[in-house]
């Protein structure tokens, strides 16, 4: 609990974190809804909002990578290692904190979108269903953030390397609509399945059997990535 409290204080007290994780998604939500959510150009709010949610969550990769790299550089991880806290307690606190942050981001996007007229076809149920699905997906961002922190020697390098994971997720479906060609590549990217699932949920198509495939892929990929991230970071990145 002490570590979760500390991580949340870090999130709140660091303006860069607040900007990147809350303000920026909020501004993008407003801009995208005004600029693109027009049925005449072929995009409904139901298809814009999933992209905004994915965008918000994938930026957790950068936040985690920077945070771990800074703490490693400042000797804080080494110091924490000398306390009786176990490594699973430490990693558990990180995962929980960043899932909470993702949850907060999604709430911001939903609230703003709702105020700007977003009414999913599935009603409020759709929003409630979208939250746990997004929470599971946020595990993949935590895992990719840890992998980034493992291979980055400095916080600056962490920022750069995190884009290797962020950009493909941004451009294969999140901001740029998928074409039949890019869809084949997008299927290797976890955000593709979240986008697909959220779109179906908001369009009240969540009885569609495809959603089970999406949820299965989101769960398998996210849990695998977070486990790989934790193992790699504990072995190679934690000193």
């Amino acid at each position, binding site marked *: 609990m002490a*570590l979760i409290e*500390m991580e949340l204080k870090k999130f709140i007290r660091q303006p860069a974190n607040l900007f990147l994780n809350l303000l920026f998604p909020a501004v993008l939500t407003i801009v995208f809804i005004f600029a693109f959510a027009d049925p005449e150009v072929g995009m409904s709010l139901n298809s814009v909002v999933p992209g905004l949610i994915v965008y918000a969550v994938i930026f957790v990769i950068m936040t985690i990578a920077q945070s771990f790299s800074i703490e490693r550089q400042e000797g*804080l991880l080494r110091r924490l290692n000398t306390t009786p806290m176990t490594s699973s307690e430490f990693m558990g606190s990180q995962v929980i904190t960043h899932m909470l942050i993702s949850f907060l981001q999604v709430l911001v996007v939903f609230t703003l979108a709702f105020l700007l007229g977003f009414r999913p076809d599935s009603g409020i149920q759709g929003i409630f269903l979208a939250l746990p699905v997004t929470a599971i997906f946020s595990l993949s961002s935590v895992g990719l953030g840890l992998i980034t922190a493992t291979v980055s020697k400095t916080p600056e390098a962490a920022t750069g390397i995190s884009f290797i994971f962020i950009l493909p997720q941004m451009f294969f479906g999140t901001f740029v609509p998928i074409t039949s060609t890019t869809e084949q590549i997008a299927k290797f990217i976890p955000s593709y399945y979240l986008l697909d699932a959220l779109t179906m949920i908001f369009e009240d198509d969540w009885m569609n059997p495809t959603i089970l495939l999406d949820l299965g892929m989101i769960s398998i990929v996210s849990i695998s990535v977070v486990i790989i991230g934790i193992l790699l970071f504990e072995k190679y990145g934690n000193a």
Partner: protein
Amino acid sequence: MSSDIKGVLKQLDEKELRKIAKLKKINIPEKWSKTLILELLTLNVSTKDVQTFETKPLGKKIESDDVSAIIVKDLVKQFEDVTAVDRLNLEIKQGELFGLLGPNGAGKTTTINILSGILEPTKGAAIIADFDVRRNLDEIKPIIGVCPQEAAVFKFLNARENIELFGNLHGIPKDELEERTDAFLELLGLSDASERKVKGYSGGMLRKLNLIIALISNPKIAFLDEPTVGMDPRARRKTWEFIGSLKDQHKTIVLTTHYIEEAEALSDRVGIIDYGKLIELGTPKELMEKYETKNLEQVFLKITGRRILEGI
């Protein structure tokens, strides 16, 4: 603080404790409880002070006993082609303040990092309070406190939050943690700045906070890696007094420092290491006699200088 002194202080009432504090020129706020005053005094009172107060005699000054707190046997740490610690052998007694000296890159910090479980040794053994650092880290971590060379503190938290975070990780009960935090902040002169974010602290303040975090869990064994580096002379002197008072609490302390006068003033014994090897060991007095010098700094320069000249 030995249990003897603590026992004597516990028998005194608040008024008497305040008198001792006055004798020690420690400013105790009126609102402080007896427990808090006791906590502060146990960090700062020597046997001599209690005797001066004419309580019952306490016997001889506390010395280190014969029980080994740390045993290092043929310890080796290799980083690719660099041998940072080279077959190091050491035995540090319980209650001893041991100064580990050496030039930059001699292997002091690596040794401390191995003893505190941060690094794994390449070869050899290190035993802390009967526990093996390779196998029993879970038993070692609750009894040690580590003050790293860099001020490893969370910059976005204030001093109190930093201390309480690490206290919580050590499982200290809330009330006790609050009292200990207040006492340490007062002792090291950080009370007024305790609610300020650490980001704005000076180097010396960060060092003090670094030291408090290492000691908040009341560890049996403390590793202090250059705890006073970057402090101004006054703050350094105050911190020396504080570290000296830890000896009275019967703590085992391993201190690395570049201030040889610090080691001379505080240490029961010193070990000088260079290129990862222990090249001299003894009390400051023994070493000064052996090398026929007036102070430990000259001993240090003689040993390390000679090694440079001889190309060892």
